[in-house]
């Protein structure tokens, strides 16, 4: 009888991977569990210790949060001129202005949110099946299609949008809400496509096969087996697409032509003007919607996962 190889000491857990088949050791997942002491020592090669933490966080605060704090102070100032480090006097003038203009501001925020959300939905419908094909199937010219579909992110926006503007004029889509949703979708779908492709790559193909073998139709499998597992990918793609659409200025300005209200369009003249305190407040208001949506989405997704007993 052959002598079995020496067993190396292993601290950790061994489990069967998602596509485990008896006799396929490659699919066994081994997770080493390090002692806290080992972890600390391993971490020393990566981290900068307490000094690294403190100086790193301070740097991030100064570079990324302080400028926004400056916007807050500026929006509350009556006048703030060189060489004062803080405004000479505070006033609620900007707030009063915004509350007097609340109707057009809300209208533009609502319009921007509406076309951005519609873009997210439309882009999702457009990219779901292509992402499935690009992740699941191998076909001739796949690399080419993959690269071709990246064009809107890589090429300068103007090179295709000016031509599309001419087509939209012809089709009567310029200066319309639908036109804006369409141009933003054409511009931003690669983000959703990428997110869905990586989402599909994480789902083992056997799940689909099993569902189909058990008699599920293509649509049923798509909606009830694949879609729930795609949720994190959809959320990631949706947030990027929403942000891109919501903060786009040029395309909305080109296709909307001022006929469709948008928050970036409302904001722009103020940013150009000399009243920095109103401009600062309006710029801060811009942040509210994306932040709100992110918290909302985090909440919704974790509730869905808890209900279904899945791990997020």
């Amino acid at each position, binding site marked *: 009888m052959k002598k079995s190889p020496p067993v190396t000491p292993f601290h950790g857990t061994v489990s069967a991977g998602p596509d485990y088949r008896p006799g396929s050791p490659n699919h066994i997942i081994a997770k080493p569990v390090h002692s806290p002491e080992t972890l600390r020592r391993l971490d020393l090669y990566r*981290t900068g210790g307490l000094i690294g933490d403190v100086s*790193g966080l301070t740097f991030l605060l100064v570079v990324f949060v302080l400028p926004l704090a400056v916007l807050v102070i500026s929006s509350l100032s009556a006048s703030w001129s*060189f060489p004062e480090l803080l405004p000479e006097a505070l006033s609620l003038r900007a707030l009063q202005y915004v509350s007097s203009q609340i109707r057009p501001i809300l209208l533009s925020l609502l319009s921007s949110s509406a076309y951005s959300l519609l873009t997210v939905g439309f882009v999702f419908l457009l990219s779901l099946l292509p992402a499935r094909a690009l992740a699941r199937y191998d076909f001739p010219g796949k690399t080419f299609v993959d690269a071709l579909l*990246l064009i809107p992110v890589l090429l300068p926006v*103007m*090179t295709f949008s*000016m031509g599309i503007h001419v087509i939209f004029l012809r089709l009567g889509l310029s200066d319309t809400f639908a036109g804006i949703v369409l141009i933003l979708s054409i511009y931003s779908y690669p983000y959703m496509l990428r997110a869905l492709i990586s989402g599909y790559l994480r789902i083992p193909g056997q799940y689909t096969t099993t569902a189909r073998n058990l008699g599920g139709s293509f649509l049923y499998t798509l909606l009830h087996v694949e879609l729930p597992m795609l949720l994190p990918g959809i959320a990631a793609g949706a947030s990027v697409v929403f942000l891109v659409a919501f903060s*786009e200025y040029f395309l909305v300005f080109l296709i909307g032509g001022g006929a469709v209200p948008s928050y970036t369009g409302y904001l722009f003249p103020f940013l150009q003007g000399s009243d920095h305190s109103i401009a*600062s407040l309006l710029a801060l208001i811009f942040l509210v919607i*994306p932040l709100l949506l992110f918290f909302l989405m985090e909440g919704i997704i974790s509730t869905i996962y808890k209900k279904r007993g899945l791990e997020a």
Partner: protein
Amino acid sequence: MKLRGGHIITLHLLPLLIPFAAFLLTGITVTVLQSLNLGFPFSNTATVQTLSARAADTQAVSPEAGGTVPGLFSAYREILQSPFFYESVRHSLFIALVSAAASVAAGTALALLIWRTRRAVKKYTVIYKLPLILPHITVAFIVLILFSQSGILSSLAYKLGLIGELREFPNIFYNKTGTGIILSYIWKESPFAALMILSLLQSLDIRYLQTGSMLGGSYFRNFRFLILPHISPALHTSFIILFLYSFGAFDIPFLVGESSPRMLSITVYNLYFREQLSSRPQAMAVLTLMFLFSLIFISLYTRSVSSLNPKARKV
């Protein structure tokens, strides 16, 4: 069976390929056609503006009306003869190159800084993503408030006694080098580069660094020979994306750009919307040249990267 599989794939891809062909490819084609003075079947008769364009065009096109026939390449000829065009090209290339390289470098430093924080504070480092949420025009405004001659940093420099008066603070806006535009791009895009780099850093096995250190490698050598090769695909991808973005983007130069030299996007905008209708083919010609340049840039860059490092993933 094979045929059926092919059909399934085609059907799967159609939802994207149809709008892609109908709008994106047609849009680029219209741009090219109009740059060759050929795009007029597409002009819209319903709007007054393009009606007059049509009138002007037919006048120019039909020799009976006394106009001369514009040649296929007349728009290109006019652009290539204008010194402003070359100035614009140089300016755009300079801004794109500097801002993309600086954003990738700053993004690498940022990613390393975040990566080096310990588990307990890691969750607070998300604040680096703030510029990702802000639109470009707001970013330019923030940089304007901070860095203009009457801005916060100028005031700070005055209080610290570094400058005696407002004029001594370097003027970065509306100067010839586009420093304001570049700073705005760096603040906005370095978190993007950091995001891409971080996702690769998280998959770097710390034991490599441990081994490197045990073999006597300094932190710099570890960075140069272990970390850098590991993150280089993200560096190349983000450089290409950021370079082409700042090369052709409109928002920031429109808000804080100088009028001379102008970035190409602003030149196109002015040619198309602010000058006579007869200069629209020139705007489209500039766009066509930008399009060709971008294609050549992508293919040359990916080729040189893959010849340097055969393992590097292409975009």
